[in-house]
């Protein structure tokens, strides 16, 4: 146990001196003839029996006191004994979360329609992080019909290349392994006839083992009554469900908050309360969902065909925007077709319980949101008549679990009768960070991939803070610098997609501040920062001597 004093060196000299002075004073008062400044009484009686012995007892008692506080344990590594921390956490009904590895699929593009074998454990790198293929995969020529569990069929990309996907898992535990759909992967060594590789879907599921600091922040999730009552209680209720346990942050808006509009529907234009909006940032970054949707040709404008599809409330509940539109035959790493219209609506009609919503901005990014999407395709096609249908892949960015959260909280198992809770994905502020990394000409460059991932992780874990400071970027980057390396010219840029579909751009070099404009649904209580590692621009410059 870390509570016991193992060495005199662990004692606080001031405490030893205090105990020693106390004993010396008492002896001195009663026996002025005793020599107390040196000799056996000073060394053995006053110093050892008084100072050391007294200080040992008091130090151990103080350590017991400190060991009851995770804050103190965090500050004092001496007390960071796993058994102690477990005892402590049990008082708050939580336990440390053990980290998990991100998993996903890598699409590999090869030249030619011939069999390719990828061994289990084949090594791929993205954003400086290593991923290993989970199982041996054999990609067989297109047209092959008898495919085994670990077989894949090569899909032609139309340019003489073929693609197939393999399952892979990050080597390192942590959420930094969660990479975005389309991220480039580099094989080591490359397979035969290799052309390129990229993530076929978002890599998800990577979580870090909790640090003591993170546990301190999570203590408030453990002890509250898990009921729909106060803000802490509601969050605790959500996080007590295994499916939502790893969700990130929630901001709860209610009566008296300028962001709350749903309680102002009466004849008297004053808030009446009784409504709760929960803004959820369930994961560090939105996931991309690829939907195979039937689209209708609605217009032709010259060579451009305008196609339209409907996103129902269950297709991608609470989605932010359309990330990509592509034909079924397109490779999955193309830029995609341009979206020319994104018209949102809402649908509550079939529900037994419905939230009180009267206008679109009250319901955007909730599970009730619907959309009509139009996009242009200039590819010559045999289908040319308005009204014809064909299928496209629509990629949408979403916060996961918005529908599940709404269903959970709408259920009478959890909702008060007459209670009205609406779950909405946090209004996104997509951040871009640019900065210079300055070094001397003789120094090697720092690990840029690691810096990008670290900055993104820092920003994505801020919660609903309202302000992103350049100093936070500075601090994060400095962990990866050495010698004379430094950071300069930090530029912060944010693009907020308002609930009404407009985009607000904010920019600063010191602090990126979410505007407080509740009338359009943007305040620090509704909006969260989101930063993709690839949106961190790092420019390495040599210091001029």
């Amino acid at each position: 146990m870390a509570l016991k004093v193992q060495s005199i060196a662990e004692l606080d000299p001031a405490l030893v001196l205090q105990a020693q002075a106390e004993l010396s004073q008492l002896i001195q008062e009663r026996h002025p003839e005793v020599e107390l400044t040196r000799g056996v009484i000073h060394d053995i009686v006053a110093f050892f029996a008084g100072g050391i012995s007294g200080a040992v007892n008091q130090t151990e008692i103080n350590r017991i006191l400190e060991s009851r506080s995770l804050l103190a344990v965090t500050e004092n590594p001496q007390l960071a004994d796993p058994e102690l921390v477990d005892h402590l956490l049990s008082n708050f009904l939580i336990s440390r979360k053990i980290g998990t590895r991100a998993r996903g699929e890598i699409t590999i593009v090869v030249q030619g329609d011939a069999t390719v074998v990828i061994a289990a454990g084949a090594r791929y790198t993205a954003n400086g992080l290593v991923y290993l293929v989970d199982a041996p995969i054999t990609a067989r020529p297109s047209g092959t019909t008898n495919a085994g569990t670990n077989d894949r069929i090569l899909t032609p990309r139309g340019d003489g290349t073929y693609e197939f996907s393999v399952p892979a898992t990050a080597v390192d535990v942590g959420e930094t392994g969660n990479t975005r759909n389309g991220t480039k992967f580099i094989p080591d060594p490359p397979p035969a006839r290799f052309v390129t590789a990229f993530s076929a879907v978002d890599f998800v599921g990577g979580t870090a083992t909790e640090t003591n600091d993170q546990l301190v922040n999570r203590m408030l999730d453990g002890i509250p009554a898990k009921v729909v009552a106060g803000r802490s209680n509601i969050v605790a209720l959500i996080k007590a469900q295994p499916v939502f346990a790893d969700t990130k942050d929630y901001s709860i808006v209610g009566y008296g908050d300028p962001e709350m509009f749903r309680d102002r529907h009466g004849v008297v234009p004053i808030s009446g309360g009784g409504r709760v909006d929960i803004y959820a940032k369930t994961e560090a970054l939105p996931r991309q969902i690829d939907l195979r949707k039937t689209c209708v040709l609605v217009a032709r404008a010259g060579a451009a065909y305008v196609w339209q599809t409907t996103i129902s409330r269950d297709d991608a509940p609470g989605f932010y925007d359309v990330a990509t539109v592509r034909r079924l035959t397109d490779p999955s790493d193309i830029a995609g077709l341009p979206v020319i219209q994104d018209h949102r609506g809402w649908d509550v009609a079939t529900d037994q319980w419905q939230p009180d919503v009267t206008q679109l901005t009250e319901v955007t990014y909730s599970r009730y949101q619907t959309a009509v999407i139009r996009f242009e395709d200039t590819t010559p096609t045999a289908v040319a008549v308005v009204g014809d249908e064909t299928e496209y892949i629509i990629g949408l960015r979403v916060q996961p679990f918005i529908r599940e959260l709404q269903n959970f909280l709408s259920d009478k198992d959890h909702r008060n009768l007459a209670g009205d809770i609406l779950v909405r994905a946090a209004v996104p502020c997509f951040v871009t960070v640019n900065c210079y990394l300055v070094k001397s000409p003789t120094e090697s460059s720092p690990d840029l991939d690691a810096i990008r991932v670290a900055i993104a992780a820092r920003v994505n874990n801020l919660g609903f803070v309202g302000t992103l400071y350049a100093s936070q970027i500075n601090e994060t980057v400095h962990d990866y610098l050495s010698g004379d390396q430094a950071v300069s010219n930090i530029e912060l840029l944010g693009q907020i997609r308002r609930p009404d579909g407009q985009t607000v751009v904010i920019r600063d070099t010191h602090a990126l501040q979410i505007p407080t404009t509740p009338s359009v649904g943007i305040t620090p209580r509704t909006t969260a920062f989101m930063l993709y590692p690839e949106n961190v621009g790092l420019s390495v410059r040599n210091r001029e001597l």
Partner: protein
Amino acid sequence: MNNFVFPSNIYDRPENLLSVLGSWWADDYAAKDQIRSVVDGKSQIESQSVLDLLETIAAMSRFSVPIYHTDTWYPLYLYKSQMNTSAVSPVRYDAAGQLYRDDLLYDAPQATQQFHFPAPEKLVNAPLIFNRFAGPTLTWQNNMHYTVAAGVITFLWDPFEDPRVARRAVYRDGVVVDTEAILWVFRGEFDWDTIYRQFGYAVGVRLQSSAGYRDILNAVYDAIIGGPAGDTVTVALSAMTGVPLVREVTETVQVIENDRRGLHVITDQHVYRFDAAANPVVAVGDKLQRFDAMTDALQIFELNTGITPADLAAVSLGSGFLATCMYADLIFENREVPLVVDTQHPSGYTYLSWALGGFPNDVTTFFEDMHARGVAAAQQSVDSCGDNDIITYPAPAFGDPPRLGRRGTLAHWLDSRPVRVGEPKAVNLPSTINPLKFLVENVLRNNAYIVKIRITAQGSQGVGLQNLRLLRKIVPPHTAMILIVAVTAETDSVTLDMLSDELSQFTGAAPQQDDVLNLVETSRVVVRIINGTCQ
């Protein structure tokens, strides 16, 4: 009530410890007195360990966590070189009322009649200071002979000039560089931030260590662990204002008296002290429940019955409550004002308005918005309406059937006609309206309540209204607390029939300065002025 027990532990009777050493050392050894002294001293040190242990045990519970750490004896070392230096100057750069003229200079010690020294780190209270443990010849008392504040201990007399204070020279490299004096602080209290470090950090509540902090923290914990309840809000407000609430499950008021220290409400269990400005709201013989208010210093009004508290002057509503984007707040006063009836409104529906505080354009916007909502409601289908919800409009032309409409506008709902035909006229409507009563009866009664705090009657031990932000952790999000902070102006009265008065007019001087105290200043809580007194 404190319960004193002696001996409280084995270390209070060191002779018993001495006997454990055996009769040789206790009775026969030539220097047995010295042995006894050593055992006495060791007992004293271990007594401190026992005290520390008891503090640690107390800190296991959020209800009993000690506010301060207590050291039975603490050596206070004073150095002559540190006396009255600029570091311990009682004049602080950021103190109010300081004018930096010839007598105050930056980084220069101020001429003083007192003797300032750095206090030991984290020392917040030193009840007594002695020069010795046994048979002290010098006993100084806090706030009489010395004070401890802001990290400085200030003596009325120079300790280095008092022969009873032990002193010694401090040598460095064989040269006297300073003089050290030693005194002993008895039961000194040190702020180790224990409340925060043990409990506050976990719920993100950090204040200066105090009983009020512990109370607020417990209210937050209670609300979190058990779910928010009215009592948790009440207890938190009590801690902020320093206005005590009934402590026990039931108590009976026995005495209510004022003395020079303020108002006292004495029950069969406790004596409660309030500021002299507080007015009792209980009477002798009243049976009180736990957390009941005893004065008007802190009152909570629940509005669910639609009754407007009589002594509320007004309520101000801002952007958190108003549906339309307003420039500033609207103020709903608790008094009858004329109802303005416009029967010629372009909408074709009777338009109502009345005097509201706020910017004129905001007031107009408010009434137009309300009217537009009412018109929209009135124009909905009447299919599902009962007779009482229908207005009959005369046929536009002879032979046409009369048109039916819904009751939707405010005028419709205030219409006193038993049979409603056509839009209501002024004669069908009340001549006056009470804006606050209207607000309470129609809106606030659903999910809001009002807390009224009289600033002048706050207790001295409150941790301050700046901590109102913490209530966001306690108040359920579907409800709202409206806080009314009453700042009382001095009043005077004259008996008019005793005066022969000649009226005249004069132009009053413009105020040179009109300060509004920052009672609360956080991003979560906004204080608005709702009325004032002209003097």
